[in-house]
Structure formats: structure tokens, C-alpha cells
């Protein structure tokens, strides 16, 4: 049987990767809901009310699974990583406590009003609740990313005790919260979440347009989604650059792994695509010569610290994996910018909704930000190995001492089974909701003049 360490790592990776399908969707959908309901309040058009209510129902489904799978994460720190919990509790704990008390409590209380309060509170209070839910989900991302960032770039602490009894103790709260990577990583993560949510809205809108169903509603939601996505995709270019820059400064081994760069005395290129042979310590592919040197030192000819500068047991071993994940993320990021800008230009020229091929692309595009979010985290977390807290605590030392491989194998099988069932049910129910579509208010069809009658040129029989 594999070791406790391997099993615990697989279990954590699996449960968090699965969890991470949902929160970015809720965060992004939260923003879209605020805009939709805001438009309803501003214009009074029933159309916006219909799409708001439609997306609230989908939000509830996604949010529910996000919460249920998120509780697992919190308790897994204690069950599988007791030494780690003891080591970081003083620091990590306050971030988690703040997340619970400032974010989750707000989010879940106002969620009750958001879901069940249409007939109980007036429009203003309901809109306020929607805003609070959206804000709460952003806050929860803030605190958890702060905690994770501290693991990448620890700050504001000192070490007490020796060996396995050692622990990090907070010396400066704000230095800990605003550690070198917090701001860059949070902005990168949150915009990734906006993309995930807004592309779901776009995708569903595109699908209705393709099927010629609820066309007015579909166009309205598509526009809301596209406006969020376009802004987010462009901002992501900026935050992505900032993130790469912090990695180059504070975690040079990770950046070296991301670009497959070994030799510290050499000028480092930036790859578009490539392949790393970790044994031969060689990277091949299409590259921009000196690109990484420019990113790190603003000069195309400066040498960049490579993996060889770090002893083998203190640097990531899955170099090709980190390289590929990082490059998939970047390629998707570029594709999303191109796609959203193209969409906005066509929308501006009133030529967007009659391009059937483009609607098909938008329909499938929902997968892109999901994949980018996942692989981005893989690159960030695998690239940090063998450390769980960078340069302080190794992953292999962070385990629970008394938990056995049998126990972890049992829970891993259990979670695999439960999550497969859960995912199948989620896809099934999501599909049902989308198939059902928004419940159309009586006069919604006739009141909206932003609808382009002539733009739908293709015929339903072609579909």
C-alpha cells in the first residue's frame, strides 16, 4: 500500500480540486447576480427579474455543493495534517477564524434572504442581500488566499520550539496578512473566479441563442456575462504578470520549474509550448529568447536563478508537470482575452448573436476558465513542493503521526465514491435547470427593446 504521505497528499489534492470547481463559480455568479438584479432595480424590466431568479436557483445549487465540500477542507487540516495544524495554527488559525466570522456568517445569513426572501422583503432589501452574499463570497476568498499566501511567502512570524514541536507564532498581524504574495495572489484568484462565473452565464446564454429559446433573456444574460468577462480577462493579464513577478522574487525555484530553467548562469527564455526532461535537465520547445530574464530583471540578457541553484531535496521534482500546468493556464488566459474582446467588438457592431460558430465556441468556453483555475493552482502548489510552508516545514513532516495508511485509504475511497456521485448529480441537475430555462414573466417578452430581431439568421432545423 502507498505511504500515508502519498495517500494524504492525494486525498487533499483530490478533495480541494473538486471543491475548487464550485467557489469560483459562486463568486463569479455573485457578481453577475448583483449586475442583473441592479439592472432590474434600475430599469424595472421584468426580463432582468426573470434572469436574476433563474440564476439565483443555479447559484443555490452551486453554493450548496461548495459549502458541503468546503467543510471537508477545514477539518482535513486536523485529521490528516495534525503536525501542520500545530505548526501554523497560530497564524493560519486567525485567518480561518476571520473567514468564518466575517465571510461565511454574512454569506449564509443573506443567502437565506436571497433564496427565500422574494415575497418576504422589499426589492431594496433583497438587492442588498444579493450584494452581501457576493461580498461575503469574495471575503472568504480573501482570507483563505491570505492563509495560503502565508505558506508561500511567510512573514510577520517567529519560530518557537524545536524539531516536530516547533511552531510559527505571529509577531505582526498586518505583516502576516499583507505578506509579499497576498495582494497579487488574491487579485489573481478572485479575477479567475469572476471569469469562471461569468463564462457560465455566457455559455448558458449562447446555448439558448443556438437553440432559439428565450432569446431575449439569453441575450440579456449573455451581455451581463460578457461585460464581466471582458473586464476580468483584461485585468487577469495584469494580475498574472504581477503574480509571475512576485514568484520570480520570492520563490525563484517555483518560477524556474514553471519555465523549466536549470542553469543559473544562463539567460532564461520564456516558452510558449515545450517539454521538460527533468532527468537530463533540459527543456525544449518554442520560446521567446530572454523572456524570463526580461520578466525577472527587465533585461533580455540577464541570467536568472535556475533549479540547479537549489539542492535536489529542496526543490520541486515534478518539473514538467509544473511547466505544463503553468503554460496551459497562460494559453487559456490569452485565449480568453481574444475571445472576449472579439465578442465585445461584435456586440458593439450588433453582429454578435447571429454568428452561429461563435455561439458554439462561447457555449463550450465555460470549460476554459475552469481548467485555467485548476491548473493554475496545480502549478502554484506543486511548484512549492517539497515544502508545505515554504522553506520552513516539509510536506513529509506535516502529517498526523497516529493516522495509518489503512485509515487514509478508507477515507480516500469513500470521498472518491461520494464525489463521483455528487458530480454526476450536479451535472444532471444543472442540465435540468438549464433545459428548463428561466420562468418568463407575462410581459417580459414585449417590454425589452435591446433585442435584435434581425440578428437571428440561422434556422432551428439546422441545429
Amino acid at each position, binding site marked *: 500500500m502507498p505511504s500515508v504521505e502519498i495517500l494524504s497528499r492525494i486525498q487533499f489534492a483530490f478533495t480541494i480540486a473538486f471543491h475548487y470547481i464550485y467557489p469560483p463559480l459562486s463568486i463569479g455568479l455573485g457578481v453577475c447576480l448583483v449586475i442583473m438584479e441592479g439592472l432590474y432595480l434600475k430599469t424595472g424590466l421584468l426580463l432582468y427579474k426573470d434572469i436574476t431568479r433563474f440564476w439565483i436557483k443555479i447559484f443555490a445549487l452551486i453554493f*450548496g*455543493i461548495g*459549502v*458541503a465540500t*468546503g*467543510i*471537508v477542507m*477545514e*477539518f482535513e*487540516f*486536523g*485529521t*490528516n*495534517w*495534525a503536525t501542520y*495544524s*500545530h505548526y501554523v*495554527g*497560530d*497564524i493560519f*488559525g*486567525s485567518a*480561518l*477564524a*476571520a*473567514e*468564518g*466570522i466575517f465571510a*461565511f456568517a*454574512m454569506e*449564509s*445569513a*443573506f*443567502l*437565506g*434572504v436571497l*433564496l*427565500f*426572501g422574494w*415575497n*418576504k*422583503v422589499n426589492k431594496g432589501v433583497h438587492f442588498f442581500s444579493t450584494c452581501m452574499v457576493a461580498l461575503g463570497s469574495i471575503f472568504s476568498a480573501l482570507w483563505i488566499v491570505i492563509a495560503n499566501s502565508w505558506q508561500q511567502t511567510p512573514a510577520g512570524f517567529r519560530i*518557537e520550539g524545536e524539531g516536530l514541536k516547533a511552531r510559527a*507564532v*505571529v*509577531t505582526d*498581524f498586518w505583516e502576516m496578512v499583507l505578506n509579499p504574495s497576498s495582494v497579487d495572489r488574491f487579485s489573481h484568484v478572485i479575477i479567475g473566479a469572476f471569469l469562471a462565473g461569468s463564462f457560465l452565464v455566457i455559455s448558458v446564454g449562447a446555448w439558448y441563442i443556438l437553440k432559439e429559446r428565450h432569446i431575449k433573456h439569453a441575450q440579456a444574460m449573455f451581455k451581463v456575462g460578457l461585460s464581466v468577462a471582458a473586464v476580468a480577462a483584461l485585468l487577469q493579464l495584469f494580475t498574472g504578470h504581477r503574480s509571475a513577478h512576485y514568484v520570480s522574487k520570492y520563490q525563484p525555484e517555483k518560477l524556474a520549474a514553471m519555465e523549466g530553467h536549470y542553469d543559473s548562469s544562463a539567460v532564461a527564455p520564456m516558452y510558449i509550448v515545450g517539454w521538460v526532461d527533468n532527468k537530463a535537465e533540459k527543456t525544449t520547445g518554442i520560446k521567446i529568447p530572454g523572456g524570463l530574464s526580461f520578466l525577472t530583471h527587465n533585461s533580455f540578457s540577464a541570467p536568472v536563478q535556475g533549479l540547479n541553484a537549489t539542492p535536489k531535496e529542496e526543490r520541486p521534482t515534478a518539473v514538467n508537470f509544473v511547466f505544463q500546468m503553468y503554460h496551459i493556464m497562460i494559453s487559456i488566459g490569452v485565449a480568453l482575452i481574444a475571445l472576449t474582446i472579439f465578442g465585445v467588438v461584435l456586440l458593439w457592431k450588433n453582429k454578435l448573436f447571429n454568428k452561429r460558430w461563435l455561439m458554439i465556441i462561447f457555449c463550450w468556453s465555460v470549460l476554459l476558465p475552469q481548467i485555467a483555475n485548476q491548473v493554475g493552482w496545480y502549478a502554484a502548489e506543486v511548484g512549492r513542493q517539497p515544502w508545505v510552508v515554504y522553506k520552513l516545514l516539509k510536506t513529509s513532516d506535516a502529517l*498526523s*503521526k*497516529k493516522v495509518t495508511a489503512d*485509515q487514509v485509504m*478508507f*477515507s480516500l475511497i*469513500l*470521498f472518491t465514491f*461520494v464525489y463521483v456521485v*455528487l458530480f454526476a*448529480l450536479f451535472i444532471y*441537475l444543472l442540465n*435540468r435547470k438549464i433545459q428548463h430555462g428561466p420562468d418568463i414573466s407575462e410581459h417580459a417578452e414585449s417590454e425589452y427593446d435591446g433585442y435584435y430581431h434581425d440578428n437571428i439568421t440561422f434556422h432551428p432545423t439546422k441545429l
Partner: protein
Amino acid sequence: METILGLDLPTWWFLVIGGLITGYGVLDGFDLGAGSLHLFFNKEESRRLALNAIGPVWDGNEVWLVIAGGALFAGFPLVYGVVLSTFYIPFMLFLVALIFRAISIEFRSKEPWKWWRKMWDISYTVSSTAITLLLGLVLGNLIHGLPINKEHEFTGNLLTFFNPYAILIAVTTLSLFMLHGAIYLVMKTEHRLYTKLTVIVNNCSKFFILCFILTSMATLIYVPHMTARFKAYPELFAIPLGAVLTLLNIKRNIDARKYFTAFLFSCIITACLLILFAVGLFPNIVISTIDPAYSISIYAAASSAKSLKIMLLIAAIGTPMVIGYTTFLFWTFRGKVKLNEMSY
């Protein structure tokens, strides 16, 4: 050691966690109990009403568990690691039960098919009951003490958890939550379901009184360390006395059909029982059955004074806000539950 209002920082944090766990018991207790009772309702409409009675609030209630977990992690990281890794399998089952409960509530109404709804109804009752029993089991073991050695390592096995005392506490927790849930539901419903629930409430109160008496006797006989403090400070006997009076008041108000008052009293008794537990435990969090010297006290487990102070400040700012949201939520959904098109 630094003190605030005469209490040292670990004691303050012990109180905060105690308050959060009590809040969780009082709030999630009724919706877990409602879940355990769910299969007693036979009609589709009754089941929908029962679900929608907790619909807007159950998620907020569960958040108290998340916060309490975070607070334990933050304040007593050593205990967090020891307790969770010791109860590895029970906690894994607990997490799976939490997932199934959440999706049962969420998924049930999504299809009209009979088998679909029945499947989620069963899943809802089983998971709610499992969560309650597992929480009770952990609580029972913490009251009873665990075979923890000098290195804070658990030396027992899975069967150690299933000792008769812990099982009794698990059943008592179930009876308490069922009573609490039944009172909540009877308060929120009308007509036929209300009539049915008045009978259920009565049965639940009998079940709970029986468990209460058994638990009291078992604790007095088998768990002397829980009562030691009460002998040292006789004025603390006010708490068990208060619990008994509260219990009598629950019974009296149920008989008088004053369910709102009965609900307040069932909140109080949940709090009383958890306070009794906290008083018996203090200043330890995990009691060792091997040697009392190996018990983990709040002082040995606490985070640094600086960290505790920061978190107390967070709690001081956050708690009024949380109470504010919770009040707003319960106030918005006051009165009898009605079904509409956004309902489950």
C-alpha cells in the same frame, strides 16, 4: 500571564469556543432534529413544509460549526490536531454525512418523481441522525476522557470510541435535538402537520427526559472528574439545578401549547448541558484516562498571547455582526411557514 477583566487569554478563548459550540448546538440542533424526525411525516406536503421551515436558516446554522472549528484551530492548534486525527474515521463519516445532508435538502425538490424524493428523504434523515450521533459520540468521549499518552498520542483503537458512556451521550444528544427540532417545527407549522407534531413533541419530551435521567446518573457514577469541580465550588450546582428547572418548564409549556416559550427553554437547556460539560472539563480540553497529568490543558495547547489577543479582537468585532445577521434572518422568516414557487 496577561489578563483581561481578571481572566487570562486562554480562558477567554475557551469561553469563545464554548460560546460558539453552544451557538452551534442551539441553532443547528433544531434543524438536525427536524431532519431526524423527517420520515415521521407521511404526506408530501408535510415533508415540504418541514423542509422549508428550516430552509432559509439551516445553512447559517451550520456556519457556527465552521466557525467553532476555525476557532479551535486558531486558539488551540494542538488540540485541533490531536482530536481530529484521533477521531479520524468518525470525523470522515461525519464529513460525508454533512455532504449528504446538504445535498439531500438541496436536491430533493428538483425532481417530482416519488422514488427520487423518497431517496433524498431517507438520505436526509439518515445523515441528520448520523451527524447528531457522531457529534454526541465525540462529546461523550471527551467527557469520559481518552487514552492519551505523554506525547499526546491516542493509544486506543476504533472500538475505544464505542464505550457505553459515549453511546449513551450520543443517544441523549439525539433525543435533545429531536425534542428541540420538534418544538421548532410545531412552532412553525399549522393545521394538520401542527396537530401531528403536537403528538411527536410529547413523545420526544418523554424520550429526552428518560435520556436526561440516565445520563445524569451515569455521569455521577462513572465520570467522577466531571463532578469534582462541582464539589469544590458548590455554587456551581445552580447550573444542573437550572437545567432541571428548564426541563420542567419545557414540559409545562408543551402541555400548555406555548411552543415559542418552550422553544426558548429548549435553547436554554441545550446551552445548560454544554456549560456543564465546559465547567467539568476546564481547564483541560482533552482528558487522559491513562494519567491525569497527560491531559491537555488550555494553557499547554493555546496559541501565543499575541495571536489570542488578535483573535479576541476579531471575535469582539465579528460577534455583534453575526448576531445582527442572524437576528435579521430569523426576523425576516418569522411566523408560520408557507410554500411558494421559490420553496424546496
